[in-house]
């Protein structure tokens, strides 16, 4: 790892101030991607601004059917929240299958979506639920937040502070793990929300997480796995790598979508 300077932020304002002072700095949440990347010398931030000790960023709050998850809330806390499970079990299930138990104790929802790894699970939930991403300066709809491979709509120095969504009527997530890395080779999140059916696909798109309009239309008129039988998945914008080519992933998208609908009930 290249040398770096560590700063522990005590508040959101403190973090933003520290970040502004260090042009080549990065925010550090759970570090489950960033530290590994730095170990491999694929990232070399001059400064790290640790967000893990900011109380305001941590925790799950529920107001009626409105759910707010603080950006620095670890996956294990989301997986274990009984209140959240009662409203939206799908996101708890998803969080409980990210990485491994040790990663889930450190990794956070804010870190995951800010990184927007094309094989990460949370982007599918945030996009599938039509969530809103709160930052230190504004709110961004999930549809506008994820802009490409490891790309998001944040400005320089902007920081994710929370993810908010209305609990869906139904939701489910299914993923096909890469047998070695256990990352999602394809994962599909389906949700029946107040504003319609949403289907978000991770692990498969060459531009990262994406919605599938064909699946959404089919499920809006008939919420059942069978409704997806006749809907095709265009392989031309899917990832091809040594683990699975685009055609294989196109098939996985459909199979996982069906499993997600079945899981949602």
């Amino acid at each position, binding site marked *: 790892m290249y*040398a770096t300077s560590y700063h522990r932020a005590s508040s959101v304002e403190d973090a933003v101030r520290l970040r502004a002072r260090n042009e080549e700095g990065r925010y*550090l949440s759970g570090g489950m991607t960033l530290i590994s990347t730095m170990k*491999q010398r694929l990232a070399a931030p001059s400064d790290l601004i640790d967000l893990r000790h900011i109380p305001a960023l941590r925790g799950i709050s529920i107001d009626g059917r409105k759910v707010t998850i603080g950006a620095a809330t670890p996956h294990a806390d989301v997986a274990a929240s009984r209140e959240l499970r009662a409203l939206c079990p799908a996101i708890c299930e998803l969080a409980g299958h990210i990485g491994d138990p*040790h*990663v889930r104790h450190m990794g956070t929802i804010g870190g995951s979506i800010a990184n927007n790894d094309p094989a990460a699970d949370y982007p599918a939930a945030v996009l599938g639920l039509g969530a809103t991403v709160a930052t230190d300066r504004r709110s961004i709809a999930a549809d506008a937040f994820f802009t490409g491979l490891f790309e998001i709509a944040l400005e320089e120095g902007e920081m994710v502070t929370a993810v908010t969504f209305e609990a869906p009527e139904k939701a489910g997530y299914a993923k096909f793990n890469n047998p070695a890395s256990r990352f999602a080779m394809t994962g599909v999140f389906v949700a029946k929300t107040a504003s319609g059916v949403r289907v978000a696909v991770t692990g498969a798109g060459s531009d990262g997480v994406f919605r599938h309009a064909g699946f959404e239309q089919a499920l809006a008129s008939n919420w059942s796995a069978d409704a997806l039988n006749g809907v095709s998945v265009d392989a031309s914008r899917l990832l091809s790598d040594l683990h699975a080519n685009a055609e294989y992933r196109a098939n996985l998208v459909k199979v996982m979508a069906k499993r997600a609908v079945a899981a949602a009930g």
Partner: protein
Amino acid sequence: MTKVTLTVNGRTVSGDCEDRTLLVHFIREKLGLTGTHVGCDTTQCGACVIHMDGCSVKSCSILAVQASGSTITTIEGLAGQGELHPVQAAFKEHHGLQCGFCTPGMVMTAVDMINREGGKLTEEKVRAGLEGNICRCTGYHNIVKAILAADAEMASGRQAAE
């Protein structure tokens, strides 16, 4: 250099290190606690698992400065007064190791599992809980057996105490 202060296995310890120093290196090299192992460079193997503030974590993927102020338990902190921790005893009894390199991480992971779901572990839960720990020798079978035996033993101990 930054001063890092930790409570490790019940003792408060301090040491200076570079900000880029990984917690596992701080534990092994500054504190001389070499039971925590480094098995890979990619955050996958789990040989470095310790407990930080009551949660199992991979100490190879955390900077020592990130951990400063926290309470740490390493494999050296499990056994009390010359007696093995029930999980350690079960690994010995059920031959839950061969070369032993992954064992500290396996044991720390098992203790975390039992702390969270003691008395309710099943083979399926144990196997899922070992997702982040790789063993190249045993095929996991005896590790799973040892963890289930330790869980049962500790649960009956808790019942007897009640």
